[in-house]
C-alpha cells in the first residue's frame, strides 16, 4: 500500500476491493503515529488495542458481505475535547487528566456507525484556548513541516496528526479559528461548518455561541467525506439544525463571484509571502473565469475585541463546572468545600485558562456588564450585518487564514495580545456563525505552508467544498 498517496476514498476502495485490510491499514498508521509522537506530540493518547479491535471488526463485516460504511476502516484522530465513551478525555488540562467520558459525543457515534477507526486523542491548547498549541498541560505540539514552529491552535494536534501522515483525517473544534489556523499552518485542509450544522453534544464547551466541530483532511474531498458523516440535526443539541445546502454552479465559473474583503488584506501585519500567495490564488480563480469583486466589512476591525469579550464571558460560565467535585478530584483537600474549589482550580488550570476565566468574570460583573458584554454583543450584530450585505453581492469570500506564516515556538507566549492577533482573520466568521474552509495554497512544497480561507453564506457549506475541489483539481 502506498500510504503517502492514500486518501479517504482510495483507502476505502482499497479495503473493499481487498487490496489491503482495515487491520493492515490501521497497523501502518499506528506504527507511524507511535514513531513520530515523541517528536511531534500530536497525540495525548493512542489507543492501539481499541483501534485494532475496531479494524478487525470492520474487516469481518466486509468479509461477511455487510455494507461498507462511508468511512469504513479509515484511521481518524480526535481532538481530546470530544468525548468517547470509556476513554480518558483531558481537554489538554491537568484538571481532567483522569476524567473518563461516560458517553460518545454525537459526532463520535456517527463516525463509529460510518466504520471509522479511532486512532487516539489529539493534543490541544487547554480547553481549546490558544492559537499555537503551546498551552497544553501535555506539552506543546510541533509543526511537522518545521518542528521549530508552532502548528497553530487550538486543534494543533489534529492538524499535525494529518500533516505528519499519522491519520487519514481528524476532528477538531473551532471557536475563533481553532480548525482553520492549524490547518493553514500545517498545510492540510480544515473546515468550520455553519454554526448549528454539526451537533456539539459531547464536545467540552468553551464558548457555546461560537464553538463548532469540524473535519481535517489531506484534501478537500477528504474533509468533505468526514463532514458529510458528522453533520445533521441532533435532538441532544438544541442549536443543531438540518438545512438544505445549495450548491453554486461550479461547472459554470462565469456565474460565480468571489468577494475580496479589503479589511482582511491590510498591509500592516501581513507578511510579503502571504500577500503574494493570496495574489496568486485570486489570479487562479480569476483566470478560471470567476468574477472577483472587492467588498468591505468595515466592522470586522472590531472583531478581536468583540470575540474576546464574548468568549471570555462564555468561558467563565462554562468552566464553572470544573470544581473538583464533579469530573475529577485532583487535590487532596478536605478542609472545606470552598477550599476544594479554589485549590483544585488553582492547581488544575493553566495560566491562559485562569486569565480568561478571570476576565470573563470581570466583563460579566455588575457595573461592567453593559459596557463590555452588551456592547460586544451589539457590535457582533454589526459584524454579522456587514457579512449579510457583502453576500448580497458575492457568492463566497476569500482571504488569508493568517496574516503570517507559522511562527516559532515561544515567539508569542509572553504577549497575550500578540497571540490573540493570530486569529484576526478567522474570528469574524465565528461571530457571524458562517462556514469557512482553510485550504493550502498550491505549489509550496519545501516552503512553509500558507492557507487561504473561503467563507460561505450560512448553510452553504457545500459551496466551500465545491470551490475547494475545483481549486485542487486544476
Amino acid at each position, binding site marked *: 500500500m502506498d500510504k503517502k498517496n492514500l486518501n479517504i476514498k482510495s483507502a476505502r476502495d482499497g479495503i473493499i476491493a481487498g487490496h489491503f485490510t482495515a487491520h493492515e491499514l490501521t497497523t501502518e498508521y499506528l506504527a507511524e503515529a507511535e514513531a513520530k509522537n515523541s517528536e511531534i506530540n500530536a497525540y495525548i493518547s493512542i489507543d492501539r488495542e481499541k483501534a485494532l479491535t475496531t479494524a478487525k471488526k470492520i474487516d469481518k463485516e466486509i468479509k461477511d458481505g455487510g455494507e461498507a460504511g462511508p468511512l469504513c476502516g479509515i484511521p481518524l484522530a480526535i481532538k481530546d475535547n470530544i468525548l468517547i*465513551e470509556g476513554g480518558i478525555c483531558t481537554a489538554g488540562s491537568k484538571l481532567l487528566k483522569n*476524567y*473518563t*467520558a*461516560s*458517553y460518545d459525543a454525537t459526532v463520535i457515534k456517527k463516525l463509529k456507525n460510518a466504520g471509522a477507526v479511532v486512532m487516539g486523542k489529539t493534543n490541544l491548547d487547554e480547553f481549546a484556548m490558544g492559537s499555537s498549541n503551546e498551552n497544553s498541560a501535555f506539552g506543546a505540539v510541533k509543526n511537522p513541516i518545521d518542528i521549530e514552529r508552532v502548528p497553530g491552535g487550538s486543534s494543533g494536534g489534529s492538524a499535525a496528526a494529518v500533516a505528519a501522515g499519522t491519520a487519514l483525517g481528524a476532528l477538531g473544534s473551532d471557536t475563533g479559528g481553532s480548525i482553520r489556523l492549524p490547518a493553514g499552518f500545517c498545510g492540510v485542509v480544515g473546515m468550520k461548518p455553519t*454554526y*448549528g450544522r454539526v451537533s456539539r453534544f459531547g464536545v467540552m464547551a468553551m464558548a457555546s*455561541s461560537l464553538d463548532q466541530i469540524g473535519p481535517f483532511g489531506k484534501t478537500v474531498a477528504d474533509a468533505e467525506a468526514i463532514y458529510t458523516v458528522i453533520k445533521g440535526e441532533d*435532538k441532544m443539541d*438544541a*442549536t443543531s*439544525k438540518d438545512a438544505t445546502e445549495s450548491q453554486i454552479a461550479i461547472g459554470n465559473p462565469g456565474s460565480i463571484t468571489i468577494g475580496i474583503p479589503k479589511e482582511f488584506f491590510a498591509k500592516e501585519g501581513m507578511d510579503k509571502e502571504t500577500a503574494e500567495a493570496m495574489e496568486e490564488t485570486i489570479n487562479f480563480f480569476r483566470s478560471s473565469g470567476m468574477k472577483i469583486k472587492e467588498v468591505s466589512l468595515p*466592522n470586522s476591525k*472590531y472583531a478581536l*475585541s*468583540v470575540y474576546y*469579550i464574548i468568549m471570555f464571558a462564555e468561558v467563565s460560565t462554562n468552566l464553572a463546572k470544573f*470544581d473538583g*467535585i*464533579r*469530573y*475529577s*478530584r485532583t487535590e487532596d483537600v*478536605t478542609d*472545606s*468545600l*470552598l477550599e*476544594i*474549589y*479554589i*485549590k483544585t*482550580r*488553582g*492547581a488544575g488550570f493553566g*495560566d491562559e485558562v*485562569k*486569565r480568561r*476565566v*478571570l*476576565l470573563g*468574570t*470581570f466583563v460579566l460583573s455588575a457595573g*461592567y456588564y453593559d*459596557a*463590555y458584554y*452588551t*456592547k460586544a*454583543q*451589539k*457590535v*457582533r*450584530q*454589526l459584524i*454579522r450585518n456587514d457579512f449579510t450585505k457583502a453576500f448580497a453581492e458575492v457568492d463566497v469570500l476569500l482571504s488569508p487564514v493568517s496574516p503570517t506564516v507559522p511562527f516559532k515556538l515561544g515567539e508569542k507566549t509572553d504577549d*497575550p*495580545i500578540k497571540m490573540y492577533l493570530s486569529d484576526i482573520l478567522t474570528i469574524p466568521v*465565528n461571530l*457571524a*456563525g458562517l462556514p469557512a474552509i482553510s485550504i493550502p495554497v498550491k505549489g509550496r512544497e519545501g516552503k512553509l505552508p500558507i492557507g487561504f480561507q473561503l467563507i460561505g453564506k450560512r448553510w452553504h457549506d457545500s459551496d466551500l467544498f465545491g470551490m475547494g475541489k475545483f481549486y485542487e483539481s486544476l
Partner: protein
Amino acid sequence: MAIAINKEDIQRLAELSRIDLQGKEEKLLIDAEKILGYFEELTQVDTDGISPMAGATNMVNIASADDVNEELVQKGIESFPESVKGCLKVPGVMRDIKQNG
C-alpha cells in the same frame, strides 16, 4: 468604559472565580490592563438602536420533554469520583455549629 483595574480587583475576581492564583497576581494584572485597554476601541462604535446578538443562529427557544435516560444516569454515577449506593458522594457543605464553636 475607562478601565481602572488594580490588584484588589484581581484578588476579588479570583475569589469570585474560585481560583487560587498561586502568586501570579502581578502578571495577571499587567495582562488584564493590556487586554482591557485593547477593548477600549469599542467605545468608538455607534451601536444606538442595535440589538445585542446573543447567539449565532436566529432560532427560537423550544422546550423538549424531560426524558430521563436511566442508562446515562447510571453512567454518570459510575464516572463520578465517589458514590455510595447509587448516590453521589460529595464533601459536606454544612457544619456542626457546636463543633466549630
